[in-house]
């Protein structure tokens, strides 16, 4: 299992704007792999194309060119309906904003992916409770999103991303709206999921400290891969390594 590829991105391009208008190359030829059970970070300055990359991998947007395979399936040639099904079965999302549906309880939010897949109601509850325990939010299940803290919301979002056991979790700046304490606890939870439950994660972030929890980081700049670093030593060493790379960007 460990060396199987979950995400295979081959030479993808993304161009915004119509052909005869002002075109903008947000991605120009990005290629990389994510292995099962990996925790990969994507970093780069604002406007580098991180969100665009995440969107095309998450099937929310179509690349202009190139192929993407997730769990062995080529998603670039799929139809809208199939893509929706694919997302609901194979992917889990955590976004910076609008994570949870505020008209549903935390429990209902987490249960939603299972309901959508037609999992019978008696099997839903144990799964929700189990994943909520993993993320330490089992006491707030009956509350509505507006009544819990930002960190709890984000962990609830992580629980929802995880509950249907997707091939990979995609997170866009999950700590972006959190204070440092909540950010740390969310990252701890994600590392825990990754290490103890073999969940593959791809996380976009601009926060070096959050990024230091990853095993591997891809830096992109102006729509291309710029550098890739692996974590060999401790987390604080990795943190410094990341800061060094970011300092390079500044020059």
């Amino acid at each position, binding site marked *: 299992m460990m060396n199987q590829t979950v995400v295979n991105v081959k030479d993808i391009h993304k161009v915004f704007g119509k052909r005869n208008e002002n075109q903008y190359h947000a991605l120009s030829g990005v290629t990389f792999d994510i292995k099962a059970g990996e925790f990969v970070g994507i970093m780069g300055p604002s406007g580098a194309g991180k969100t665009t990359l995440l969107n095309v991998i*998450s099937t*929310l*947007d*179509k690349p202009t060119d190139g192929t993407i395979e997730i769990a062995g399936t080529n998603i670039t040639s799929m139809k*809208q*309906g199939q893509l*929706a*099904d*694919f*997302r*609901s*079965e194979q*992917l889990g*999302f955590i*976004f910076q904003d*609008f*994570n949870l*549906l*505020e*008209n*549903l309880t935390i429990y*209902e939010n987490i*249960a*939603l*992916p*299972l*309901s*959508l897949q*037609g999992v*019978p*109601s008696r099997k*839903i*509850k144990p799964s929700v409770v189990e994943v909520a325990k993993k993320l330490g939010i089992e006491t707030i299940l009956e509350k*509505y*999103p*507006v009544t819990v803290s930002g960190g709890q919301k984000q962990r609830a979002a992580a629980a*929802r991303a995880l509950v249907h056991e997707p091939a990979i979790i995609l997170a866009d700046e999950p700590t972006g709206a959190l204070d440092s304490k909540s950010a740390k606890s969310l990252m701890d939870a994600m590392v825990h999921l990754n290490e103890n439950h073999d969940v593959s994660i791809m996380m976009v972030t601009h926060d070096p400290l959050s990024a230091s929890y990853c095993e591997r980081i891809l830096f992109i700049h102006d729509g291309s891969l710029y550098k890739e670093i692996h974590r060999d030593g401790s987390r604080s060493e990795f943190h410094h390594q990341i800061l060094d790379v970011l300092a390079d960007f500044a020059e």
Partner: protein
Amino acid sequence: MLLKLSFSSMRKRFKDYLVLLFGLTISIAIFYMFETLAQNKTFIEANSMISSIVFVFHVGTFILGAITVFYIFYATSFMLTLRQKEMGMYMTLGAKKHKITQLMFFETFFIGLISLVVGLVIGFGLAKGIAELFMWQLDFNGEGFQSFYLSSIITTVIFYIILFLLTSIVNAWKISRKSVLSLLHAEQKQDFVKTKGSRTFFGVLLAVILIGVGYYAMVNIARFMQLGLILAAVTIIIGTYLVFIAFLPYFVKRLKQNRTLNEKGINSFTLGQLRFRMLNLTKVLGTVAMLVALGLGAMTAGISFYHNIEKQASTFHANDVVIHQPSKEDTEALAEMNVTEKNVYHYKVDGDGVYFLKKDLLVNPPLIKHSDETFELPETTRVEESLPEDNYMLYGENDANRLPELWSTAIRTEMNASYQLFGAKDIYVYGTSEYQNIVSDEQQVILATVDDFKNYLPQLEIINQNQLELAETYRDDDVENAGNTKYSNYIAFKAIASGTIFMGFFLGVAFLMMMASVLMFKLLSSAASDIHRYSMLRKIGVRKSLLVKSIYRELFLLFLFPALVGLVHVIVGMQMFSFIIIEPYLKIWIPISIFIVIYGIYYWITVQMYKRIVLPKEV
């Protein structure tokens, strides 16, 4: 400075303000439309079959006013949701609370004033357009109706200014009570309606009692009269809102508590949507139910009056056509009708009297309308009385034999042997020998029934015209009325009823338009925040078809509940007319089906519009 800021932010959220303006202006326009009738005493008194019509319109104004108050409070609270986040921001930047409070007050009032002006203009246009449409359709001259009616303008202005002052105060007060933080995060808040079992039970019980009292008053309106109308208006309005306030939150909660149901597919979301702004929702649905009741009620009454014209016209006549001394033109007109029964009777006329041949009458006895009891409606029967004497005279003066009652009815009413036709002559029924002794040409009168009376109005008009000319030869006079026939009654009833029908249609359309605008406003005003939710669902992989299904279901429930309640109100309410309409439920399926079709189409259109707004665009 703040004022400037607030104007610029209004400009930025122009679309949202447009929605708000739309919601307010339609309400104002409809209120004005209603008042163009309600305040025009001369017109409504001249055109109504109901004696206390002015009073009825007073009660109508009260009902519409009450609904409007609910609705305007709901609509202007949308203003609050539009503004509170920004108000919170001003406060974090150091704006004083009383400044914000003032600002909220003036903004709400300002929007109110604009919509008042626009609403009056729209209301004037609608009143004119709709009135002309129905006058044309009903062939009704509508003399005295004025679409631009000053006293209605004044009433509308005063009513809404007071209302907007109140809502402005409430909005300002609400803003002043909230903390900065709760303002900033207000958009995500649920408004919860507490749903305890016992409270629901008593709420629903009270609602049922109130509505029951209202229904009782309506059914027995002949006994309670004006008091009954007031009682019914008050209890039914309160009861209707209470049904939604007490029952709906409980109902949705119960649905949600059913885990198997709630956790199936996208149900939890659909129900969550219903539950999210429950307090507003109950106000909207109560308002819609009342408007359905009023609009459909007015339409149904109008149509019922219309269908009852023929019923009324045939109260005393069993035969549809009577032709004395038919000309060629008359015979041709009759030939164009589908005649179901036709009898010919002979008679002679001289200077003193009209003499019917007894043999003809006995061979083909005519149909008449007859009732044994005074309060029963007459029923169609065939005359079976025998005529043993040789001769009879209609009223049996001096020594002459008096014609038995049923025969008398047949000759007076069905054959129209009346003063209006023959002038001052006595009417006789003669045996064959004496009949032959009368020196005069023999004439005939045709009685006929047809398959569908209303289909032959042009032919009947021709016949009626010829009968008038005939009457002139007997009466040496300009004759405007050649006696009572079913046709002449029909024309007379139609003249009286068309005013009432006009009012029914005019108001029906107005109320149903307001109903549509209220539902529309509810959807448009919540669409902005729904967009996020639908795009979120789409992202986590909900198929579009499933989202569409959820929209259909959510809106179906929104449309269904008030329609049901409104429909029941109408069906019971029609009882009120039973003292003036012979059969208030005659063909009631027509207005109800029309309503269901229009409402259904409106539902479908709303779903399509809503889909366009909230469903994310595909890549």
